[in-house]
């Protein structure tokens, strides 16, 4: 009879749940025996081994604390985390990109205030910590922060007669023209994913708006300052030059050899505006599984005569937050360990990320990433990617509006209007 089977199943489930429940209460009750459930998005690359080591070392140093790592594929992570935080058993430690997403989680009371735990050492990671603060309080801690810039093919630049990387926007536009004349696709872009489009607009805004405007707009969502429309107008100059690969609107950023990263990695386009993760992505898209030797990096060009501080950059990174239910101080101790010099040096030396701890910068071996790190360390102002800095709904609307401009379906003024409209809905 089906019903008996069903009843049997129900009984089994109940029994299992009871066992589970009792074991968890037992572990939470005894001070000696704590478990930290650690949700991260590292499923491949050098981070896999590093994370295993980190967990093992931390457990050795803190008897009684068990780390239970749960690696999740990135997209899966993003859909699972809100549901998990809503539940009664959220992960204790989980990946956080800071910015508006963290603000949303903080407002809902889902993340723990770490300020008092991290106070002794947070200064040692410098300005990077700011992106993971809400109202001056630390709700998560970054372990790797990078900046967006142009990854370019030095050989193709030379072929087009370009001796050095462009430093200003007009120089950049003329470099694009020269590459085009030489029959080279100047820029590869993964417009299918929309966020690579937004990098251009975000960056031009960062280079055109004053720091005060950038910071206040991220809170008030007021975009009336003329610099925002101006960013779109400068972007339109670039779009009108037709610098991208054929069919760029359907190109993904990272999947396969015909993605934008793949095109640059295989010498089919001269440059791509991307984050510090790009060498790793490119490596996996080449036949030899090597970072191309022709690869170079230069920062986004400055726009002459603007109100922004020259050298302002767009960037972001990875960090960890503790959920409201995480056992403390165990969770904060674990975050402290991830940011300790010993681990941070390995973050750099394995090529896993760009360490945030002062004094560990030398661990980065890749010359291009060293350049990225040099610019990051000396930058007067690093703006977090806008789609991350803003609340998720507004960030997505921003990416979508900019993607429309790339598709020729929105003017600079319309882009700003659409972002403002999305902000009003909140």
């Amino acid at each position, binding site marked *: 009879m089906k019903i008996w089977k069903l009843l049997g199943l129900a009984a089994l489930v109940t029994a299992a749940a009871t066992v589970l429940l009792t074991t968890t209460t037992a572990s939470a009750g005894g001070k000696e025996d704590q478990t930290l459930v650690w949700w991260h998005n590292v499923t491949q690359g050098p981070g896999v081994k590093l994370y295993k080591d980190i967990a093992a070392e931390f457990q050795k140093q803190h008897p009684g604390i068990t780390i239970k790592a749960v690696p999740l594929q990135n997209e899966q992570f993003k859909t699972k985390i809100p549901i998990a*935080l809503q539940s009664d058993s959220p992960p204790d430690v989980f990946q956080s990109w800071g910015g508006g997403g963290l603000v949303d989680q903080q407002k809902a009371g889902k993340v723990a205030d770490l300020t008092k735990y991290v106070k002794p050492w947070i200064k040692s990671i410098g300005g990077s910590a700011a992106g993971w603060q809400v109202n001056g309080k630390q709700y998560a801690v970054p372990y790797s922060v990078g900046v967006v810039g142009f990854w370019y093919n030095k050989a193709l630049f030379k072929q087009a007669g370009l001796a050095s990387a462009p430093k200003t926007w007009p120089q950049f536009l003329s470099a694009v023209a020269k590459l085009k004349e030489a029959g080279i696709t100047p820029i590869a872009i993964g417009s299918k994913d929309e966020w690579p489009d937004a990098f251009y607009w975000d960056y031009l805004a960062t280079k055109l708006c004053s720091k005060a405007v950038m910071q206040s707009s991220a809170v008030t969502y007021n975009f009336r300052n003329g610099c925002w429309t101006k960013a779109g107008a400068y972007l339109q100059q670039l779009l009108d030059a037709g610098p991208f690969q054929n069919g760029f609107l359907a190109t993904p950023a990272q999947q396969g050899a015909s993605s934008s990263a793949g095109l640059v990695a295989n010498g089919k386009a001269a440059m791509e505006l991307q984050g510090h993760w790009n060498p790793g992505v490119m490596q996996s898209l080449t036949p030899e599984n090597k970072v191309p030797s022709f690869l170079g990096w230069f920062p986004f060009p400055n726009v002459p005569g603007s109100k922004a501080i020259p050298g302002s950059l767009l960037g972001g990174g990875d960090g960890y937050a503790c959920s409201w239910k995480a056992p403390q101080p165990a969770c904060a101790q674990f975050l402290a360990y991830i940011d300790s010099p010993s681990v941070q040096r390995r973050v750099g030396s394995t090529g896993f990320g760009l360490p945030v701890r002062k004094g560990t910068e030398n661990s980065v071996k890749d010359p291009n990433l060293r350049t990225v790190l040099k610019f990051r360390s000396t930058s007067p102002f690093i703006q977090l990617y806008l789609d991350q800095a803003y609340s*998720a709904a507004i960030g997505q609307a921003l990416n979508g509006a900019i993607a429309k401009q790339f598709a020729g379906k929105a003017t600079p003024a319309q882009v700003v209007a659409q972002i403002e409209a999305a902000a009003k809905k909140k």
Partner: protein
Amino acid sequence: MTTLDGSTAGRAEARPAVVRHRRRWLELGVFLAPAIALYVVFLIVPVVQAIRYSTYDWNGLGALSDYVGLDNYREAFGDPAFRQAMEHNGILVVLSLVFQLPLALGVALLLNRRMRGRSLLRVIFFAPYVLSEAITAVIFLQLLQPDGLVDEVLRGMGLGALVQLWLADLGLVFYTLFVVITWKYIGFAIILFLAGLQGVPDELHEAAAMDGASSWQSLRLVTLPLLGPTIRIWAFLAIIGSIQLFDIVWIMTLGGPAGASSTMATYMVDQGVNSYRIGYATSVAVILFAVCFVFSILYQVFVLRRDVRGATTRMAG
């Protein structure tokens, strides 16, 4: 309709015998309870929950506190992006019926003839349907790259002028996807129609031929009417499938560029999963559900009723 027809008939006949009536309800209760329980827990409850969520402005994190009434629905119907997505679903329904039906019918009629390699051909036509939507999408994504296999084949045949930006052209991308969808689902229609054709007795064709009917007349007046129930069932599935289309679009284009290939489902996922506007996305889900539900009811009442009438099990006393 089954229950409507069945229960009215049953009640009318069973009324005199009260004891038997009671026993029947007990039987029904025992046998149906598990199914009904599952149905309620996994279908009715989520639907009711969804309707509740859809009246809140909620990002999936905090408590349900920001009640907005029907504002989410108002916003959805006022959003050009959602209207565009609905329009795409509508176009897809029409295209499916206009192109897939004659195509599938034609192939089914061909494959119904006795000829060499018939089984092989049937397998070939049916094979794409066995592939998952995700695999289909990934394969075509590779084929349709700029300078990919499709472009190269066209050039090789001297048809280089026909090469297009299949997935990047805002005016073309949706029709490219329609071709892929047709490739994938035509096999299912063909198999259905072939099965239907088995039910058309040869004697009728013979009789028609003896009465001097041409093969066209025989097709139009004998085959098609007898294939009617099959065609109507296929059309029902095709329309519902067109309204709910998601996987192929999401993998191939993410609904882009700039919404040019969006569907209601891709719009919903974009708003819910990417923007964390769970309340709003749920209202879109409810709209999607309502469209399918109302359509199903109307289709059952007005189109399928004739076909199922004879097939229902009656609760004979």
